[in-house]
């Protein structure tokens, strides 16, 4: 599909394409209610509650006033709807602001000021400096005589540097006044979201140049939301408008991610639902049997002799309604509230603020904090993530000479400085390539100092280094470069730029030396793409050695090369290049092909080595997270030796002899297969030893392995705790994430650049580092942090707390619902199994919404262990990873507790309020009070740390309970009139409450105490030592014990089974194809300590 844009044509195109009205809104006023309701009701839970609420409208079966379900349901819906509405309103306001901005355009040949929303396709739009671009424009003219202008694209791709944009050559030299009258047609693709491509053509109508098709690229466009900088004015023709702009098309609603905890809660909810159905069926049958056997004899009930056809259904439906409280209606709201608070805690955390840049952490996705605590695999990018991405030119090798000694870097190497100042030809050429072969824009500040704006950190490092070595890139004026070498100026004209792509892995420029008119191609790139392109006869061995040597130091290497061009060779080539550049289909590949025709017979000048220092705290962070049982995979585009070097210095792998690195390589399928089998075998063998095994694979072998040997590779992936994948492409990164996800691991991907975006979006949790490569990754990610070392805190502190808190909150929600539901069920047995509700509407409604939700919400402040303890014992994260705190067995514990408590409340209530005291309303209130008292003590018992808020919530809630009930009891028309006052005056009421609390809590306390003292979980042990100031805290780092003393210490208790039999993977996955592999893994010993290596 193509679109034709007629420039400056006021009649056409108006109706064909949309106007420039931007709309990010999800709703309009009219469709808000139906659309929002529809969305909310697409969730199973909401459908369920709606069904219950509708059934309640049938007065024959409803046990209580329908308000008891409708009230909370409407409240919950209102809360989430108003949140949606508020967000949408804010979006509307932003849109409105953007839409109503005044913009200069040309209509009927006259410049007019109109609102941005009225821009049509084909309109010519005029912008001034610092204006925001209102829609996607094709540049036609700028203030700059060369036809350049600068834009800041931060809002689009997050990159903060200035980018150059130029007008198409067809429009060169058109007078400003004539621009008003320009006519032509642009053939461009239909709206798409590729912000890096605009493969279009333009043809101008007479009197302008005619019949010549000009290619257009993204370089000729100004995209919506960019800012015009350093350019007085620019004008362009609107090609995409409204929501069809590149930005508009990119805007997508991300699929909501579901955490493991959410999935578990859903599963448990399903189980509860089944249980509820069973209960309903059993009680329904019992009720019908009782009715036939007994009920008809109860003359005072007056059962009709012949019932309606649905008679048999009435009692089961009544029980369905009675039991509907088993699934807590408030759980979704409570969890949402809790989750947004977890996210806020991450945002607020001052310890996760980057002190250098002031960038704070941000949780963009509020819903998945629990998953942070359950991470099993971290896939990390290298550059900019582990390293600072602050490139410094360190060493170089120029025509066989190595510059830069052990201690100092090349810039302080006297020999190199000498060579530069004396004008050694090789060195000068090398420096020229460094200074010219790039896309850096020099910006001269008012004081005269030059700073460089560069897209690539490598280029910036090279240009800065060449400037230090007296080859200064002074100015870039259109195509003309001003270079100053040893105070003698030189000028070069850049004819073509053969751009960097991750497939080509090199970039070249064709330049003409202005004085001599000679043509050169200057090239730089990765060794494997440059070294094969030399002219026959050049010895590249020294360079290859240099590359190897530098890589082993963990330096990034770039090979620099050049060649002289003949004029006619260039002319021939440049026409092909133009042609390739104007293709609409598959342009990138064709351009690459054409480029290759020129990039040959190079003379290699030398190798530049650039250091990318590790970020602060990276080795420590990785060590701690590895201790916590998290496996690390490093995915990088760098070469193998650099990657291994970085991996060693980051504590990914212990150095020999503890660690072992296995390399999978090969160029053909067979080689890869053999290599893979060998590595797999070694890994299986060493699994029994406590060896730290890592496998290394490069992009090529990885592709073959993923394609043909997926199964063995998957097995290897599961067996090996560490993997280093080098030379991988963004899509391979995403594939690896997918592979691990298929094995049912929780994955976290962390990266900083645009090439990590796919991996970040693919992973369960995406973390972006707001780094120097722009904010692209941070934008796409669920969490953005300033530095890699904050990951430790994000996972161990925030993730772990979130998981623990949600585990308690969700199970407690079920507990309290079960509690009241069981009492209803028990009561039905003494009310003729007829489906009478013991509790009244007010109590049922308030029980879920107020009494039991408020105290437990404050459990989001609970901390089972202090942050310090967790950091000292990261192994405690195992409990979260394996889902120890929320799984069917813990849930069964809560289920049992609620059953026990229901029995306690029910039995004590009906016995102490028997005979003359057995008034329905009073018994109901005694039972409700009993539940409230019990749940207050349950929350108190399960709270690990009481802050003032928890005390207020737990005990204040009790006060609130009585206050609410007194108020309701003082309304004469309510069914509860005077009940609560009467009860509170009776000594027997209070005595009953104390009895309920003691009977309910003593066994729970006793059991908890026994477990806590004699079968403590690891969390309990750490709690004890933390609070009693035990030996763990004092020693800080635990000294490993000797074998002999250990043997004596180990009790035969089954609780103290070896760690790995309870490792996360062993408990979690029980079924599926990976089972066999798991059992292998579960026997492996932990790799808990690693000697740290300084970087």
């Amino acid at each position: 599909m193509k679109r034709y844009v007629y420039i400056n044509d006021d009649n056409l195109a108006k109706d064909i394409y949309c106007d420039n009205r931007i709309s990010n809104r999800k709703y309009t006023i009219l469709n808000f209610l139906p659309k929002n309701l529809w969305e909310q009701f697409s969730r199973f839970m909401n459908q369920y509650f709606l069904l219950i609420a509708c059934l309640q409208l049938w007065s024959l079966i409803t046990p209580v006033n329908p308000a008891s379900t409708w009230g909370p349901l409407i409240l919950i819906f209102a809360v989430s709807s108003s949140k949606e509405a508020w967000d949408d309103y804010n979006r509307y306001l932003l849109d409105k602001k953007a839409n109503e901005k005044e913009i200069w355009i040309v209509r009927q040949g006259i410049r007019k000021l109109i609102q941005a929303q009225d821009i049509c396709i084909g309109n010519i739009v005029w912008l001034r400096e610092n204006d925001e671009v209102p829609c996607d424009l094709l540049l036609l003219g700028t203030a700059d005589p060369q036809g350049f202008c600068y834009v800041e694209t931060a809002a689009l791709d997050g990159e903060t540097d200035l980018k150059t944009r130029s007008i198409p050559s067809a429009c060169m030299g058109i007078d400003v006044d004539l621009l008003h009258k320009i006519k032509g047609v642009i053939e461009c693709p239909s709206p798409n979201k590729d912000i890096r491509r605009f493969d279009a053509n333009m043809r101008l109508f007479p009197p302008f140049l005619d019949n010549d098709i000009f290619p257009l690229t993204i370089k000729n466009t100004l995209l919506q939301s960019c800012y015009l900088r350093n350019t007085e004015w620019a004008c362009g023709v609107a090609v995409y408008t409204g929501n069809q702009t590149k930005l508009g098309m990119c805007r997508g609603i991300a699929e909501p991610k579901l955490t493991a905890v959410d999935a578990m809660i859903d599963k448990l909810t399903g189980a509860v639902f089944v249980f509820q159905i069973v209960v309903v069926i059993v009680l329904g049958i019992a009720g019908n049997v009782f009715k036939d056997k007994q009920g008809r004899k109860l003359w005072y009930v007056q059962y009709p002799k012949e019932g309606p056809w649905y008679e048999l259904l009435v009692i089961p439906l009544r029980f369905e309604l009675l039991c509907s409280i088993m699934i807590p209606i408030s759980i979704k709201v409570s969890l949402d509230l809790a989750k947004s608070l977890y996210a806020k805690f991450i945002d607020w955390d001052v310890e996760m603020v980057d002190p250098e840049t002031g960038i704070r952490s941000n949780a963009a996705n509020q819903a998945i904090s629990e998953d942070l605590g359950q991470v099993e695999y971290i896939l990390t990018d290298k550059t900019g993530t582990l390293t600072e991405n602050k490139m410094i030119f360190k060493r170089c090798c120029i025509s066989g000479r190595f510059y830069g000694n052990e201690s100092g870097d090349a810039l302080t190497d006297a020999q190199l400085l000498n060579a530069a100042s004396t004008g050694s030809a090789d060195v000068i050429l090398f420096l020229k390539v460094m200074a010219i072969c790039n896309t850096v824009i020099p910006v001269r500040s008012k004081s005269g100092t030059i700073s460089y704006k560069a897209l690539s950190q490598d280029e910036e490092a090279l240009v800065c280094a060449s400037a230090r070595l007296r080859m200064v890139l002074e100015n870039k004026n259109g195509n003309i470069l001003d270079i100053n070498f040893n105070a003698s100026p030189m000028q070069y004209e850049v004819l073509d730029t053969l751009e960097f792509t991750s497939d080509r892995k090199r970039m070249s420029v064709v330049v003409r030396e202005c004085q001599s008119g000679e043509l050169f191609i200057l090239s730089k790139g990765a060794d494997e793409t440059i070294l094969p392109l030399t002219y026959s006869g050049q010895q590249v061995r020294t360079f290859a050695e240099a590359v190897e040597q530098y890589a082993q130091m963990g330096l990034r290497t770039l090979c620099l090369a050049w060649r002289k061009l003949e004029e006619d060779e260039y002319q021939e080539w440049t026409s092909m290049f133009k042609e390739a550049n104007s293709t609409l289909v598959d342009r990138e590949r064709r351009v690459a092909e054409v480029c290759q025709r020129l990039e040959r017979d190079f003379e290699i000048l030398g190798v530049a080595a650039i250091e990318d220092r590790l970020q602060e705290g990276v080795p420590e962070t990785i060590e701690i997270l590895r201790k916590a049982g998290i496996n690390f995979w490093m995915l990088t585009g760098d070469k193998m030796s650099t990657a291994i070097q970085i991996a060693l210095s980051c504590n990914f792998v212990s150095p020999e002899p503890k660690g072992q690195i296995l390399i999978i390589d090969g160029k053909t399928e067979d080689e890869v297969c053999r290599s893979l089998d060998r590595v797999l075998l070694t890994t299986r063998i060493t699994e029994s030893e406590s060896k730290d095994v890592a496998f290394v694979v490069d992009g090529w072998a990885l592709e073959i392995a993923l394609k043909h040997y997926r199964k063995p590779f998957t097995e290897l992936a599961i067996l090996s705790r560490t993997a280093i994948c080098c030379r991988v492409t963004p899509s391979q990164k995403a594939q690896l994430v997918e592979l691990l996800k298929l094995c049912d691991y929780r994955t976290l991907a962390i990266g900083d650049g645009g090439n990590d975006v796919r991996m970040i979006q693919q992973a369960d949790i995406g973390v972006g580092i707001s780094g120097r490569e722009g904010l692209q990754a941070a934008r796409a990610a669920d969490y953005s942090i300033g530095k890699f070392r904050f990951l430790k805190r994000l996972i161990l502190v925030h993730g772990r707390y979130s998981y623990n808190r949600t585990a308690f909150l969700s199970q407690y929600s079920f507990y309290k619902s079960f509690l009241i539901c069981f009492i209803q069920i028990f009561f039905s047995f003494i009310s003729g199994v007829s489906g009478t509700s013991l509790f009244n509407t007010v109590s049922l409604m308030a029980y879920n919404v107020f009494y039991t939700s408020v105290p437990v919400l404050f459990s989001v402040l609970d901390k089972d262990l202090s942050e310090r303890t967790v950091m000292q014992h990261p192994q405690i994260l195992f409990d979260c990873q394996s889902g120890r705190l929320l799984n069917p067995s813990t849930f069964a514990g809560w289920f049992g507790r609620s059953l026990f408590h229901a029995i306690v409340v029910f039995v004590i209530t009906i016995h102490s309020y028997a005979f003359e005291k057995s008034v329905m309303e009073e018994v109901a209130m005694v039972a409700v009070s009993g539940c409230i008292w019990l749940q207050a003590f349950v929350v108190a018992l399960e709270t690990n740390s009481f802050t003032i808020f928890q005390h207020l919530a737990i005990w204040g809630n009790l006060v609130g309970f009585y206050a609410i009930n007194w108020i309701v009891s003082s309304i004469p028309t309510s069914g509860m009139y005077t009940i609560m006052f009467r009860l509170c005056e009776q000594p027997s009421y209070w005595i009953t409450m104390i009895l309920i609390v003691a009977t309910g809590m003593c066994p729970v306390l006793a059991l908890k105490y026994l477990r806590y003292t004699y079968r403590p979980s690891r969390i309990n042990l750490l709690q004890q030592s933390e609070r009693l100031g035990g030996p763990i805290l004092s020693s800080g780092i635990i000294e490993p014990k000797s074998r002999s003393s250990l043997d004596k210490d180990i009790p035969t208790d089954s609780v103290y089974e070896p760690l790995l039999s309870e490792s996360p993977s062993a408990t979690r996955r029980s079924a599926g194809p990976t089972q066999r592999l798991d059992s292998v893994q579960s026997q492996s010993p932990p790799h808990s300590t690693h000697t740290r290596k300084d970087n």
Partner: protein
Amino acid sequence: MNSGTPSSSAAGAGSADSTAPRRNSKRPKYSRFTQQELPACKPILTPKWVIGTFLLVSVIFIPIGVVSLFASRDVVEIVDRYETDCIPEALRNDKVGFIQSDRSKTCQRTLRVPKNMKQPIYVYYQLDNFYQNHRRYVKSRSDQQLRNNGSLQDTGPCKPEDNTAGGPIVPCGLIAWSLFNDTYGFTRNNQQLNVSKRDISWKSDREHKFGKNVFPRNFQNGTLRGGATLKPNVSLSEQEDLIVWMRTAALPTFRKLYGKIEVDLQRDDFINVTLENNYNTYSFSGKKKLVLSTTSWLGGKNDFVGIAYLTVGGLCFFLALVFLLIYLIKPRQLGDPSYLSWNRNPSGH
């Protein structure tokens, strides 16, 4: 490396997001709440505390239990089950037939007072196996109608006892319709014992739930006769038997106040009861009992609370002892790091 690869979905999520990086760089405010560093008390279950708690509970519970039990034992209670005895032996094969017939149902009972009973002595009738809490029954009333003279027609929930040919029934519904109608007369030494029927219902019910100007209408006029009739010219707020009956019981066994005897009864007094055995509990084999009882600060005779307190107190004491013994025999250092599994793993160094 250059981020030179085209990434399709990478660009920003909308115009709203463009402010994010700027807002992001603002330093978050420090407060102990936002940093999750609020001062907190972190109790742990040390043996001292737990054993102490259990001891404390037992120390509190056992006396309360004893006091409650004494209170319950102080209550003097006379219970007389009469539903079978009040049917002539010849007719006991067809009790339902008897109760539905027009025979005289007067019955004489003699009660012996086991202990001195201080006035006021409460007279209850107790029904067993009577489901006042049945779903069909408990809802079959109209509070509107009971309270308000204007709401005669408000008989929605009362079906099937809502209307007769002559208009709406007041009070409507099954509860009112099945009003208990046995009556008791007491004599001691051939002297009439006065049973006060005043103030046997809740004051709040008389004043706010049952209207002063609501009078019975069409009551028990339907085809089916239920229980007692009401005096037609007495307002509902003064029909205390009805008010008591309308406070439905939560359990199938319940007592309702019939009246109060406001003289003391002496030990070994014989009381003759003349009762009209009208109410049909025979069709569902329910029991009927006449109960005379004094009261204590805890209410009527009910040993449950006392026994429960003693049991819980005793159990707590027992648990405290057991924990203490375990603690002494097998002491265990809390928080010993050697119990941490990762500290014991030989491969961990």
